[in-house]
């Protein structure tokens, strides 16, 4: 089931998504970078969201029901921008 169906709460930085990610990404950091304005493109590229294969394990473990996978997917697009 996707977290987008549920009410998302504030991230409490428990770090479970990082431990669950099979590609050792940092979904929390990607999320906070994507939510900041303006988005720091260099930081997004450094965090390497392109490695994500959208397995959504980060969504499964998140206690706050945040839809991290969609944010990482958006970060992929931002990382590809020139």
């Amino acid at each position: 089931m996707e977290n987008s169906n549920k009410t998302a709460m504030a991230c409490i930085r428990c770090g479970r998504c990082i431990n669950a990610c099979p590609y050792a990404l940092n979904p929390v950091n990607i999320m906070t970078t994507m939510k900041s304005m303006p988005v720091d493109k260099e930081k997004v590229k450094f965090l390497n969201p392109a490695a994500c294969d959208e397995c959504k394990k980060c969504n499964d473990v998140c206690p706050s029901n945040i839809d991290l996978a969609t944010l990482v997917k958006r970060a992929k697009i931002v990382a590809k921008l020139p």
Partner: protein
Amino acid sequence: MVDTVKVDAPQNNTVEAVKKPHKQSVEWMLYDVLIALAPAVIYSFLVYGVYAIRNVLIPVATMFIAEMVFVVIKNRKALFSKDEKTKKKFFDVLNVTDILSPIISGIIFGLMTQNRDTDPEWLIYFILIISSLFGIIFGKLIFGGLGKNIFNPAAVSFVFMLICFSSKFTGAFHYNAWGLSFLPNVASFTTSATALEAGISSSTITMDNIKALFLGNINGGIGESCKIPLLIGLAYLLIRRDIDWKTIVSFIAMFLLMSLVAGLFIYGHNGKISPLTYTLYQLLSGGVLFGLTYMLSEPVTMPLTAPSRVMYGMVIAIIVVFIRTFASAPEGMAYAILMGNGLGCFIDYYKWSQTRFTWKSWLAIAIIGVLGLGIFAWCMNGYNFGGIL
């Protein structure tokens, strides 16, 4: 639309609960902290009576009211909207986390206060209210509420109280307020406010006093004195996986190692003080066990990745031992946790923070350990023991 979401959500949760038993919600994590705090609260109510009830309930009420005001201010556009479509009621915007988190912060701060009257006696109400307000506003709310705070609100409240009002706590001590027969008398070595203020000497660091420290028949913080409820709370939080065991283990390992080094130096000066007894005395005195159970392991103010969390625990242990050994303040746990919170962002900077344990992270952990121990041993080597023994 809103009704559909409300009907769907429990079904989704049930399916997920069957599929993935370790999925937890934020509400349950906060309920778990409340359950873990319950033994310490019950113990303090039993032993310190109305004084403990006063010291716990006033911060809880103050922080709760402050959080509610914050919820109103945060959702003012929806609450005071003139358009009926966008207007919401107060209970629609209120989350369970908004209720639970200030209660937990208030209980933690209340349990850290001393079992001692202020002079004059009414001042304690003012101190508790002002410190709680300062902690919740400047420790949490100005950052944007739960999940966005850098510093632990309970630690901010406690440090504010220590800095501003510690000279006012000069009244009578309270212990065994209900006159319970099974409680032992207060241990004789604590003529001063806390065990750490009693100082380090061959008469204070004995196995009898360590037993008194473990059982809690000493003066000090109302929730920190007896270690049995704290160990129950720690075990519960670890079993429920609400806190990260890596931070706890790295903190305890570094703390014991550095205390042992200090104990060896003191043993070299005074052969009557055993290094192992000194290490146990340091672990059981003050707020070390309380701080590591309820404040150090709080996920919001910790770094994110596993290697960073190990480093965070080590850095806080180093700061605690330095403050306890060399600073004029006897207790350093709350100060060290705040300094660690501040350093957390630096440890967790995205350019060097590793998400898994690699040789680089192990090297960084080794450097922190060796540097901390080396500088501490160097300082101890040049320390004048005449003043403390």
